[in-house]
């Protein structure tokens, strides 16, 4: 009788253990997939915003009209992921910029972009797109757009807490 109970217990334990392992592995895969997906989404989102800004800033840059370019960049305040956006002329002099009020870091256009432009810089805190603004093959200037991983991190933390809570209950 005792041997039967022990086998039953072992079977339950093995089943539960393998299910837990499978669940953990699945969660880990999902977690890393989410990281990659969110990163790609942020880059795509930034790229789209960059294209829209460039399309709307060509005249402003061509005529060096600061109020007009400031107005275009000002619309970025509705996107919480945007930390900084700057429009520079072809000599890399800043014409106008938008900076998220809570973001205090000084942003400088890397000098190595002069001439060619398009660049993607990624680190733990932000993703940055630098794109030349052209009109009829003439270089008018550059756009620097920096986006934050913050909202993504918050989402990941809440996801992690939910998984941990589910495991604890289980």
């Amino acid at each position, binding site marked *: 009788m005792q041997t039967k109970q022990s086998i039953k217990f072992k079977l339950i334990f093995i089943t539960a253990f393998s299910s837990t392992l499978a669940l953990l592995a699945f969660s880990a895969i999902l977690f890393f997939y989410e990281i990659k997906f969110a990163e790609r989404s942020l880059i795509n989102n930034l790229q789209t915003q960059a294209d829209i800004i460039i399309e709307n800033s060509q*005249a402003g*840059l*061509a005529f*060096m009209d600061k109020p*007009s370019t400031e107005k275009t960049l000002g619309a970025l305040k509705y996107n919480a992921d945007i930390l900084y956006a700057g429009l520079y002329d072809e000599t890399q002099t800043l014409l106008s910029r938008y900076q998220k009020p809570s973001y205090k870091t000084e942003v400088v256009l890397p000098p190595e972009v002069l001439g060619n432009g398009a660049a993607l810089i990624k680190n733990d805190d932000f993703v940055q797109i630098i794109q030349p603004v052209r*009109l009829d093959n003439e270089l*008018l200037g550059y756009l620097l757009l920096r986006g934050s991983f913050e909202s993504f991190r918050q989402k990941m933390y809440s996801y992690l807490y939910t998984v941990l809570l589910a495991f604890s209950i289980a």
Partner: protein
Amino acid sequence: MASVWRNPMVGVLALSACNAAVAEPSVRELQITAAYLYHFIQFTEWPERPAVFRYCVYQDARFTELLQKTYSDKTVGDARIDVSNINEQIKLDDCHLVYFPQTVPPDFLQKISKYAILSVGSQKGFTESGGIIYLFEDDQKLRFYINNTVATDTGLKISSQLLKLSREP
């Protein structure tokens, strides 16, 4: 060259290039005006897209020569740019843009407004007399005012981007 074109510090100087009352403008001043004229074309659509954009300068050989040199390697899309100095005897449908560095005879401006021609001038009351773009000085910068009603009547479509930059003098 491009940086000279868009330097706001010399923007004010460009106005003198457009003003008949002042002394002969420097080459640098003229280059600013040339840049504005080039960009006006880039943000305007003609009823039929020309293979060659013809810039006509009203009675100013010096500025015509400068434009010819400045635009020699420039294109608008695929279209190259041709510049000529004109007087009132010109066949107007040969021009896509007419620039008036000096006083405009009102009847000539009226004649122009019947064609799809982008007229640009710095004479006071230019747009009221039937001109499309009036260049003027504001806050030490060269600004412009666009009379879009005249532009639309002549069949020109001016980009909303350019219209956004239009300022009341």
